[in-house]
């Protein structure tokens, strides 16, 4: 059985706001029975204030799908629509004290139903921009679609490349065979052949420059690396901003879903790893909030 938190169990065994809201004026429906997950969210929105006065869910799905739906209805009650739009899947997971990586998609479904309901209220179109594939790397919750996109976009050639760009495969190594299969497939689509002995693209680009970086070069390279990681962070509903570089320390602001989420420490570690690989020197990545502390201690 999954290692569900107490919170997940609480919301599963005693779901809040189950059923459709009477006189709802906003409905969001996502998922489908073929995927084994489907959620209908109904809201009663005050037309004057745009405050969500009532929310209800109907869910077909596993324990964490039901718990995610239940906690979502609690989170958004009393919020204005604009506030509710800022709720991310990470928020939902955080309110449940975390979900297993295989189950994060349940929280994504919650966020999507919410966005769909708000779009429905406002008479807007909402389209699902989040394509989900089979989970490949269980250590870092990376799915096949993400890996394929990264392989395409960054011309990745080896498992090591994929690990460097997505973290997939950087943990227990169980998914290396699956990653190779993805590489084989994408490279074949590009008319290339997967070569298990190919040098990683990092090695190739690193060989060119071995001179120490000037501070300006360093900042530029750091910005480049952050730009390359941005799509991945944004897919999770977050972002990163470079605030300051002092010596070999980069101060960053994690925003959106990455801010304060349980993955944020892991994300920062991932960014640091990647910076070190690309810049070929030691770089420490520190949340910008630590900067003030440092200054005061220094002063």
């Amino acid at each position: 059985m999954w290692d569900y938190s107490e919170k997940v169990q609480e919301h599963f065994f005693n779901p809040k706001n189950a059923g459709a809201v009477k006189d709802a004026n906003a409905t969001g429906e996502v998922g489908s029975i073929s995927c084994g997950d489907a959620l209908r969210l109904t809201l009663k929105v005050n037309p004057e204030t745009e405050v969500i006065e009532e929310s209800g869910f109907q869910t077909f799905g596993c324990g964490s799908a039901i718990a995610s739906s239940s906690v979502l209805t609690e989170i958004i009650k009393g919020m204005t629509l604009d506030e509710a739009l800022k709720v991310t899947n990470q928020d939902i997971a955080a309110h449940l004290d975390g979900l297993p990586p295989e189950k994060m998609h349940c929280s994504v479904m919650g966020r999507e139903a919410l966005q769909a309901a708000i779009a429905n209220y406002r008479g807007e179109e909402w389209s699902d921009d989040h394509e989900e594939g089979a989970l490949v790397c269980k250590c870092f919750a990376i799915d096949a679609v993400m890996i394929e996109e990264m392989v395409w976009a960054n011309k990745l050639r080896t498992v090591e490349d994929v690990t460097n760009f997505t973290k997939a495969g950087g943990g227990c190594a169980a998914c290396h065979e699956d990653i190779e299969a993805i590489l084989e497939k994408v490279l074949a689509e590009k008319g290339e052949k997967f070569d298990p002995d190919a040098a990683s693209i990092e090695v190739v680009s690193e060989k060119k420059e071995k001179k120490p970086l000037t501070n300006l070069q360093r900042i530029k390279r750091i910005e480049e690396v952050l730009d390359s990681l941005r799509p991945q962070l944004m897919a999770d509903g977050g972002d990163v901003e470079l605030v300051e570089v002092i010596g070999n320390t980069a101060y960053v602001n994690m925003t959106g879903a990455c801010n304060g989420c349980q993955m944020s420490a892991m994300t920062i570690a991932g960014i640091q790893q990647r910076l070190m690989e690309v810049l070929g020197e030691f770089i420490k990545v520190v949340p910008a909030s630590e900067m003030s502390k440092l200054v005061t201690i220094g002063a």
Partner: protein
Amino acid sequence: MRDIYLDNNATTKVDPSVVDVMLPYFTEQFGNPSSIHRFADGVAKGIKKARGQIQELLGCEHDSEIIFTSCGTESDSTAILSAIKAQPNKKEIITTMVEHPAVLNLCEYLEKEGYTIHRLPVDKAGRLNLEAYKAMLSDKVAIVSVMWANNETGTLFPVVDMAEMANAAGVMFHTDAVQAVGKIPMNLKDTKIDMLSLSGHKLHAPKGIGVLYLKRGTRYRPLLRGGHQERGRRAGTENTASIVGLGKACELALHYMEHENTHVKAMRDRLERGIVEQIPHCFITGDLNNRLPNTSDIAFEYIEGESILMLLNKAGIAASSGSACTSGSLEPSHVMRAMGIPYTAAHGTIRFSFSRYNTMTDVDHVLKVMPDIVAALRNLSPYWDGDRPVADPEQAFAPTYS
């Protein structure tokens, strides 16, 4: 209320008398059976006795046809890899779409290595088409690997007939009998089955012990090479305590064979009847007239299996599900999909599997709680309205924004 264990196809409790015979092999009988001193004697005798007990249950001709392995999966891998190594010019394998991953994933891997894998489909009741099978047999086929009983539905395949057909075509035949051994009688010496896998933990022996039955005269290549244990057919110092335990478990299984097919079956049948009578929109999957006596797989429509399991668990009942969510994949079980079970039901399948340790009181308890569990989840489901599914569920819930 004591906890009710209805997940015996996943694994079973070790029988206390099995534990009893094992214990000395951790302490005074700790010797290596290959040694030439008195510490080894008793151990070698214990293994010999176990071989005989297993031979008895399987009904095989010689006790040397029994090779001890570490699990069912190892036996499956050994059998299939042995057949292709021993016959390097044969590049085809016949199996079914509903095998256990121990066979399916190995075949998928071999497919990447250039083997052609024929996967026999099944009909709605999980049955094979023997005509289609016959047409596939040829001298290019290295091995047929077909399970005796399906782990999800309990459906039995006609492996004795299929082995005859393979033999007539000169093709080697292996069966994964991990779920069948100990639950239905077998007499391997009267069959053309060349290899058979079994696993101790499915019949009240410990986990981590298995057997590959290898009919005398069958061409063979070992998976693990090294010492001369198991006559060089499976190197590695014997798991003596577990081997002795498995022997005892096989003796007990033979003793309880009739009980399994009468009392255990009666519990299963009563559970099924009670559920189908009380709960609308559910059905039993598999070949109802040709199943293991202990297994019942029931599809509850419009709700999802993992949530059912969680509520059952809370009620003290352990079962399992073919839903996607329990495995962390996005698809429901390959067995349900192969049978063409619609998605509205496939995600909500629950497998109840009995053993001789269950009682009719267990059945009554499940029958008491199950209707409420299903009703509670249907209450939450967007595909359910009041006391029935919404009209045309796929249509009624068509997410406009997705």
